[in-house]
C-alpha cells in the first residue's frame, strides 16, 4: 500500500512503486481530470503540482510522489489562484476540444503563484511544455494575462 497526499487528502493505492502517478490517479483513484497525452513528459496534458511545482505525472513514479503534496485539477476550485484562472479560461472561451486544458491550467496556476506580472516571454517559457493541437495558444495567453490582472488587483 502506498499513501498519496492528493488535494489535501491521503489516498491509498496498491501498485508497484515505479507506476507513474498519472495511472494511479486515473485508473486506481478515478481522478480523470489529469490527462494522458504522450507518456514521456512531452505534452503537458498530465501536469499536476508536486509541492506547488508543475510536474508531469506520466513520468513521476508513485514511489517518489508519496512523500509530497500532490495537487490536481480537481483541487483547483479550492485554490485562490486556481479559481481565478479557471474563471478566466471560461470567460475567454479558451477551450476547443478541451482535452489539454487541465494541464494548461495547472501550468498557468503554477506560473501565477510565482509571478503575478509575467511577461509574454515568461508565459511562453512556463507554458512551452504544454501542447494544444486545437491551437488555443492565443487565448491561453490572454487568459493568463486576464487572471494576472485580477490577481494583481486582489493583492
Amino acid at each position, binding site marked *: 500500500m502506498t499513501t498519496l497526499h492528493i488535494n489535501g487528502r491521503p489516498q491509498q493505492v496498491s501498485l508497484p512503486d515505479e507506476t507513474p502517478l498519472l495511472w494511479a490517479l486515473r485508473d486506481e483513484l478515478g481522478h480523470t481530470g489529469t490527462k494522458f497525452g504522450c507518456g514521456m513528459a512531452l505534452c503537458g496534458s498530465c501536469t499536476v503540482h508536486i509541492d506547488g511545482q508543475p510536474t508531469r505525472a506520466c513520468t513521476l513514479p508513485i514511489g517518489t510522489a508519496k512523500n509530497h503534496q500532490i495537487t490536481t485539477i480537481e483541487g483547483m476550485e479550492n485554490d485562490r489562484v486556481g479559481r481565478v484562472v479557471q474563471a478566466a479560461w*471560461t470567460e475567454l472561451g479558451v477551450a*476547443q476540444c478541451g*482535452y489539454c486544458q487541465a494541464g494548461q491550467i495547472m501550468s498557468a496556476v503554477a506560473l501565477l503563484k510565482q509571478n503575478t506580472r509575467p511577461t509574454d516571454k515568461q508565459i*511562453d517559457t512556463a507554458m512551452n511544455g504544454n501542447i494544444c493541437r486545437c491551437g488555443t495558444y492565443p487565448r491561453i495567453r490572454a487568459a493568463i494575462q486576464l487572471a494576472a490582472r485580477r490577481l494583481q488587483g486582489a493583492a
Partner: protein
Amino acid sequence: MNETLHTTRRTFLQGSLSGLLLSVGFNGLVRAEDARKYGADSMPGGTVDNPHVFISIEPDGRTTIIAHRVEMGTGVRTSLPMVIADELEADWARVTVVQADANEARYGNQNVDGSRSVRHFLLPMRRAGAAARQMLEAAAAARWGVPASEVQARQHTLLHVPTGRRLGFGDVAADAARLPLPAPDQLKLKDPSQFRYIGQGKVRAVDSEAIAHGQAQYGMDMRLPGMVYAVVARPPVLGGKLRSVDSTEALKVAGVLRVIELPGFTGAPMFKPLGGVAVVATNTWAAMQGRKALKFTWDDGPHATYNSATYRAELEAAARRPAKVLRDQGDVMQTLAQAKPADKIAAEYYLPHLAHATMEPPVATALVKDGRCEIWTSVQNPQAALDGVAAQLGLKPEAVQVHPLLIGGGFGRKSKPDYVTEAALVAKQMEGTPVKLVWSREDDLQHDYLHTVSVERLEAVVNAQGRPTTWLHRTAAPSILSLFVEGGKGQMDLEAGMTAINVPYDIPNLRLEGAEVEAHARIGWFRSVSNIPHAFAVQCFVAELAHHAGRDHKQYLLDLIGPPRKLDPRTLADNWNYSESPERYPIDTGRMRDVIEAAAKGARWGRKLPKGHGLGLAVAYSFMSYTATVVEVAVDAKGELKVVAVDMAIDCGPQINPERIRAQMEGGAVMGLSLALSGEISFDQGRVVQSNFFDFTVLRHAESPRTIRTHLVNNNHEVPPGGVGEPPVPPVAPALFNAIFAATGKRIRQLPLRDQLQA
C-alpha cells in the same frame, strides 16, 4: 413533449444499414452511389427536423435539447442546440444539452466530419425549433380560446398579445406535444433580425466550465465497475501479420491478466482493426509494461520496403510524365510545346505525410455481455462505429449501443473507428468484463490514417504582361480510394475537387492531371484534406508568377480571379462540389475577392515593413467557405524565423456562432503553421520513423504568433451556410511561404520548413 421523446425512440434503426461500409467512409463515395442527391440528403441518415426527437420540456419549464452530433472542439454541441433554442424562443439559461447515442435513423446524420454540422443542420434545427414554438403557441391559444395568431412565444413565455396574458412553456408543453406537427409550408422561421442567440456570440460553450474544472468526460475518462485495461501491439508494417508471439514474460508482469491474439485484416484497410496482440491488465500502465515484455516475429508483407525518400522520387517521376486528364480546356500541351523558354515557368512542391496527433489518443471502452455490445468512446462517426462493431462481432445493429463522449481532438482521425472495433474484439474475449482499450502516443503516430504525401507540379506559359495563358497542374499523391478499394489509385473527384480542379482563374488553356500511384500506408483525411497540398502549390505558384511579372501579389491574384461572378463548378469540370448542389453553391469570385481584401486590410498590405520582414498572402475556397490568410514573418541574418502576425479572413455565409468561428480561425492558423514549420511523418522499411512529440513536433506556445487577427466577412443569411472547421487551414502554409519569400527572396517548395532557411 417528454412522452413522445421516449416513445419515438423505439422506432430507431428502421433504415437499411446494409452496404454502408463504403458510404459511411467519405462523402464523395456516397455521391458515387447516388448522383442525384446533394448535401445532407447524400449522407447516411440525411436530416431529421422532428421537434419530438430533439426537444423536451418539463412541466416546470426545464428544457432539454438533444445534441445529436459530438463535440470535438468546433462548438457544435453548443451551436446546434442554440439554433433550436433561438427558433423555439427558449431561454438558454433553462436549457440542458443532452448528448445523443449513435442512431442516425432517429437523428439524421451524426458524422462530424467534412465541416458539415452547421452546413447541413442549420435549417433542420431551425425548423425543429420553429415547429415546437408554433405548437406551444397553438396550445396556449387553445387554452385561452383565442386565435393562435394572437399568441407569441417570447423567452420561455407565451404571451397573448391583445390582453397581455401569459403562460410558461412548461404550462402547455404536455398539450403542445399532443398537437400535430405544423405542415412544412406552415412553418414560420424567424427573420434573422429576430435572432437572440444566432450570430450574437453571447452563448458560452456548454462544456467550458466542466473542462476548466477537469470534470468533462472524454472517451479516455470512461470508468465502469470491474473495468480492465488493454493495449495492443500492432503489426509495424501495414498489412503485416503476426507469425508468432511469446507472452511468457508479459504474463509475469504484475497486473497483467491475459494476452489475446487479434486477427489481421484482409482486403482494403477501411476501418478494420490492424490485428496484433492485446495485453489486458488491471491498469493501463501494467498493460503497457506487459506489451513491452512480448516477443514477436512478424511477417511484414508487401509494404515492407516503403521508404519516404525513395517514394518521393517515384512521385516526382510520376509528376513529370503525362497522367490522367481530369480537367482540360484550350490546348495546354500544344501551347506549352510552342512557348518560348523565357515565357515558361515550372515549379514542383513536396508535402509529406502528416499525423493527426489528437491530444487524446484513440480510445474506446467496450462491454460484451448477453449477446449485446455497449461502447463508450470519443468518435466522430458514432454510427459507423456501431456498424463496424456489429459487423465484426456478428451482431445485429440493434444489439450494439454506442455512447459518444467528448472527443479530445478529432481532425478526421476519429471518423475512422478502427479503434472502437478493436476494443469490441478484445471485449468479446473478456465477455462480461468492460475493457478500456487505450492507444499510446506511439500507437497513434505509427498506426494513423495519414494525410497523403504529394508532389504537385505546376507549369505555366505567361504573356507579355506576365499573365498565365497556359496552366498545367499535375498532382501525384496516394489516394484515399486505397483505403476502401484494395490497390486503389488516382485522384478521386473529392481529392481533385479540393482547390485543384476548381481553380476559378481566367486562363484559356488549363489542365489538371492526376497521377496514379500506389499507397503503402493507410491514407486518410486530415483537417481540410487535399486542400492542403493543392492550395499550397497553387497559391505559392501564383505568387511565383506575380513575382516573375514584377507585380504586386495581391493585385495579380485579384486580376487572375477576375471580376465578381458566380461560376457553376461543373463548368470547371468539378462534378463533386463537396457533394453540394452546384446551383445552391456556385463558386462566387466576389466573395473570394472579399476575403482577400479583408485579410490584406487587416495586415495593412502594402505598408513599408521593417528590414527582414515580409508579408505573404493566400486564398482558398473549401467546404463552401472562402478563406484568405496574410502572414507577416521576420527572418534574421541567421535564418531564424519568427511569425509576427497572422490575419485570417473567412466568408462562411451566415455566421451562427461567431465567437466559435473566430476560435476555429485561430486554431486553424496554429495548425496550418504547425504543419508548415515542422509537420512530417516519414517511413523507412515500411515503418513510421516518428514515435512521439520529440520527433513529430507540433507548434508550441513560444512559436505560436503573438497576434492572430480574425476577420469575419459578409455574414449573409441569403446564401447557404459554409463550413468552418476545416476552411481556415488551407491558406496558412502558402501564405507563410510567400511571406518567407517576400522577406528573404528564398522560394522554398518543400514542407515542412524546418531548417531550410539556415541552409
